[in-house]
């Protein structure tokens, strides 16, 4: 599949405000009542890299994304997003930071009372107060990017699961955020649609150098991200030779019992001696 190019303005991803990492978790603990979900999670997401988060259901992968966005607060530890400590920031001040971070929720979380146009333009309309011709143009551009321009007047209930996921991606990237958080973007989708979405995520990583956390249960998606690169010339992803896998800004993080048991690239993952991880990836 080939996807049209999303025109970005010069401000896109420019400058990192002196932050060392796009996202940094430092010894984060979190419990929901008796259930200790995270027990000292620490990791860093360098700028421009995509990190795939793995773990069994309930291991806290989606919780990590919500923590990164400040939607929930940890019991202890620090979380730095673009150099800002979201654990110490008030909700009102987090809204400014969230403008630089996009998120694609597990079930898309599109506003069901709004059409695709208003869903995608939501953040821009909130900023400007009204829908302007410029907003309309940008909505059409991102919908072209996800190949769904024809759905602009439809409501989320009229779209398939894969289409909703792509609209959610369009909504997340319309403001060209520096970081994007993907929560199981291919979950429950057929292989062809999943491939389309992975290609969009790859394009965002390789063409626009967006840093991202990718929560997924599908190992094949993460391995495709690690062994392929998006080619802007052909507007398609292409497979890399085996020796060039490490050239791709892609890493893996595996959670078990609320702790990080692996954090490294595809080569380190392939050579791990940990029995649990070997069983997990086999």
């Amino acid at each position, binding site marked *: 599949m080939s996807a049209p190019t999303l025109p970005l303005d010069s401000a896109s991803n420019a400058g990192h405000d002196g932050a060392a990492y796009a996202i940094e978790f430092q010894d984060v603990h979190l419990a929901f009542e008796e259930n200790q979900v995270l027990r000292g999670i620490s990791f860093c997401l360098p700028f421009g890299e995509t990190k795939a988060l793995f773990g069994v259901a309930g291991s806290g992968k989606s919780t990590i994304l*919500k923590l990164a*966005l400040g*939607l929930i607060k940890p019991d202890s530890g620090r979380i730095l997003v673009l150099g800002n400590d979201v654990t110490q920031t008030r*909700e*009102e001040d987090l*809204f*400014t930071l*969230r*403008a630089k*971070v996009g*998120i694609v*929720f*597990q*079930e898309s*979380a*599109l*506003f*069901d009372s709004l059409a695709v146009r208003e869903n995608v333009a*939501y*953040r821009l309309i*909130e*900023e400007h*107060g009204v829908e302007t011709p410029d907003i309309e143009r940008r909505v059409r551009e991102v919908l072209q990017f996800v190949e769904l321009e024809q759905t602009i007047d439809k409501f989320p209930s009229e779209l398939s699961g894969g289409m909703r996921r792509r609209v959610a991606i369009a*909504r997340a990237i319309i403001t060209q955020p520096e970081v994007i958080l993907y929560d199981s973007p291919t979950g429950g989708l057929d292989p062809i649609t999943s491939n389309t979405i992975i290609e969009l995520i790859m394009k965002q990583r390789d063409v626009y150098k967006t840093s991202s956390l990718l929560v997924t249960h599908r190992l094949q998606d993460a391995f495709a991200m690690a062994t392929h690169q998006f080619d802007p010339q052909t507007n398609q992803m292409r497979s890399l030779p085996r020796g060039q896998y490490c050239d791709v800004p892609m890493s893996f993080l595996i959670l078990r019992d609320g702790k990080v048991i692996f954090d490294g690239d595809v080569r380190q993952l392939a050579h791990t001696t940990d029995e649990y991880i070997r069983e997990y990836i086999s």
Partner: protein
Amino acid sequence: MELTSPTEFAKQKVLAVQDYTVMTAQSVANLFRKPLYFADMIQQADLIGVGSLPIVVLTGFFTGAVLAVQSANTLQRFGSITLIGQLVSLSMVRELGPVLTGLMVAGRNASGMASELGSMVVTEQIDAMRALGTDPMKKLVAPRVVSTVFMLFFLTVLSDFVGLAGGLVVSKILLNLDARQYWSNAWQSLVFQDVFMGLVKPVMFGFIISTVGCFYGMTARGGTQGVGRATTQAVVAASVLIVVTDLFVTQFLMNVLSYK
């Protein structure tokens, strides 16, 4: 089903009251903070106010009518049938108009708010809204509170009026009373204190309906079943709070306004 200990139950209730208080305080504070969502306020005013018109008009009319029918018998025994206008007027304006309109709007709109916001919570739309840089308290709660308070005030005035009209129809058609006498009795019996009391109550009831509806919606948990539970609880809590508040407000205003 897991049993909850009395201590845990008490803690949950205290926590719920605390959360409700924080939410109501925020919803009031948000009226003085930008951005103010005027378009959402108008939309909600239409949904709550115009949408509730049929039930409020019907309830008001038939309440006034049945009040006339019920009281006619007793008044006739004492030879005071001409006072029927006064009785309907005072009952409707001071008590039945505000309370019944409040209960009707609670049944229709507290449930609507709880189910709408609850669905948004369980489908992560509220999280999405926060992630997209919008404060749901400003965007969703504040417009509902303002619109409900504003519209319930006017719905109550309308309900009072159609209630009087209901009493008039019964007096004229069933009791063969003079319409002008009924109307003049009804009108002249009202004093400032009656009207004031009748107009303060809908403001308080509107606030109760909207904040309770929004609170149960925003705190809904547990999927579609949780949304259903939140909807039911919102209607029950709003209705009970209305009748309980009514007693205290009535007593308070009677003292303040020096009723004789």
